[in-house]
């Protein structure tokens, strides 16, 4: 029988061997099935910890209270008590270590998110005091007159 017929097969096997060899070097060791199914649990295991290590930016009002206790106390007695400080002041991150002052957003557009009148029936929006933007003190910042920490008070 003519053996030369097998020569292309050897080339093919060689190629497959190369791919398997490449796999040893190029695929991370922890890549595999880490769970009940190949369909949903085939991955590189160390990626999970990588995501857990992703830096946290928003710290929350409790964290602000550690230094800014008075402001937080005022705020907690007001209708704005459930608004996070960082919604307007931006994420605290490592503040004050690498960011001494947080860039506070004092633009009208921030307040209008909740307080622009939309007149929607049966909507939680309608429970909020609202203005029509173009009719109410255009060109002024809301904080010029209103205290965002306690909106019942006048501006600070």
């Amino acid at each position, binding site marked *: 029988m*003519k053996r030369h017929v097998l020569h292309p097969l050897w080339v093919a096997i060689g190629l497959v061997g190369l791919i398997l060899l*490449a796999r040893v070097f190029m695929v991370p060791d922890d890549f595999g099935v880490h769970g009940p199914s190949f369909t949903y649990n085939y991955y590189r295991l160390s990626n999970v910890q990588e995501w857990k290590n992703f830096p946290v930016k928003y710290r929350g009002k409790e964290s602000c209270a550690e230094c800014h206790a008075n402001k937080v106390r005022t705020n907690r007695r007001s209708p704005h008590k459930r608004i996070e400080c960082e919604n307007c002041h931006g994420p605290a991150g490592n503040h004050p270590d690498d960011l001494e002052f947080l860039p506070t957003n004092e633009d009208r557009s921030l307040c209008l998110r909740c307080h622009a009148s939309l007149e929607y029936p049966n909507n939680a929006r309608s429970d909020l005091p609202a203005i029509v933007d173009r009719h109410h003190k255009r060109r002024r910042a809301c904080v010029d007159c209103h205290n965002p920490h306690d909106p019942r008070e006048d501006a600070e």
Partner: protein
Amino acid sequence: MNQEVIVHGIEWTVKELFVYPNEYIYWSIQIVMYPYMTGLVAGAFVLSSLYHVFGQEQLKDIARFSLVFSLALLPVAALPLLLHLQQPTRAMEPLLTPHFTSAISAFGIVFTTYALIVLSEIWFVYREFFVNQLSVLEGARGFWNRLRLGVYKVLTLGARDVSEEALAVDHKAAKILAGIGIPVACFLHGYAGFIFGSVKANALWMSPLMPVIFIMSAVVSGIALCMLTYIVIMEWQAFRLRRTGSTVEAGRVKGAESEIISQAARYLLGFLVAAISLELLDLIFRGYTAMKSWDILRSVMYGKDFVNIFVLQYTLGNLVPFILLLLPGRTVRRTVLALLLVLFGVFMMRWNVVIGGQAFSLSFSGYMHYHMPVFPHSLETFKEGLFGALTVAATPFVLFWLINKFVPSLRRVPGET
């Protein structure tokens, strides 16, 4: 906004009415090119196999050519994917960690298997030629001749026996590979259809018919391209022969052609009818069952995409070439026109599936309009624009020209062995 921070897809997508914020046309012209090119590969191979396996003698000339052309098309099939991937340097990963629940993971394995089959079959068909070239080029001078000698030495893979027995084994092996190759070619293209047909989230793509429709139209496009290229080349050669005054040979070239063309055209028409029947069946079913997505699909298919689907694809791309190929008194010119229209029709089918499937939002309440980038102003608008597509379209011809220098597949005068 920083120039680097461009949302992929935003430059060629225009949203209309209510579209989810993250929706863009992510799969654009290169994803249209990819099934088109793999379809040509599969079709060219099937045409070649019609001779090798089923002994259709009239197809002998075109079979050798389409086999080599299918090799030239093969790397080009991978090119649109490389141009599309957001991380092309990781393109080997489907071979390294294939997640077999994904249709796309089949790509690495099927593509490699199919490449090996085509290469092996070409090897068996041309082995005698390679070995003969060794003695023809021995002692020849000049860089090009020495290069060719070196290449042929490698290509023989050490099998230099050209006895009657050995050649008979070659023919047998080529026949077996051609036979195995047909289902693999079908799989190569069927899986591309499965990629779309299995996406339940897409109301237009989701259909069990999709893999079959893709295979049928792939074979159509492959046969059409091989016929077309073959006609062009043979007509060109006949034209050159006529210019030098060899009228007799020119006559023989034309004569041999028309039998080949008739036979190939018969197969082409068969697959064409199959493809269009399935597509119409799909459309009729959708309209009849009128699922939740039917309203938006109807407005896309009968509205903004009406010309693309019914005029360009169904009429110009299917009906007109069908008539042209069946009418008596078929001329070469009419055949060429029909083949060009068929190729255009199959392209439009890919376009209407890929782009059409992204023409409506997942909300079923909005549309996305595709504006293919024409003149590139960035790497992305080149890769995923007209010029990227043209690069992909032109490459097989360049590759074929190169491969043909070592593996000649065109004959000067038919009848020569």
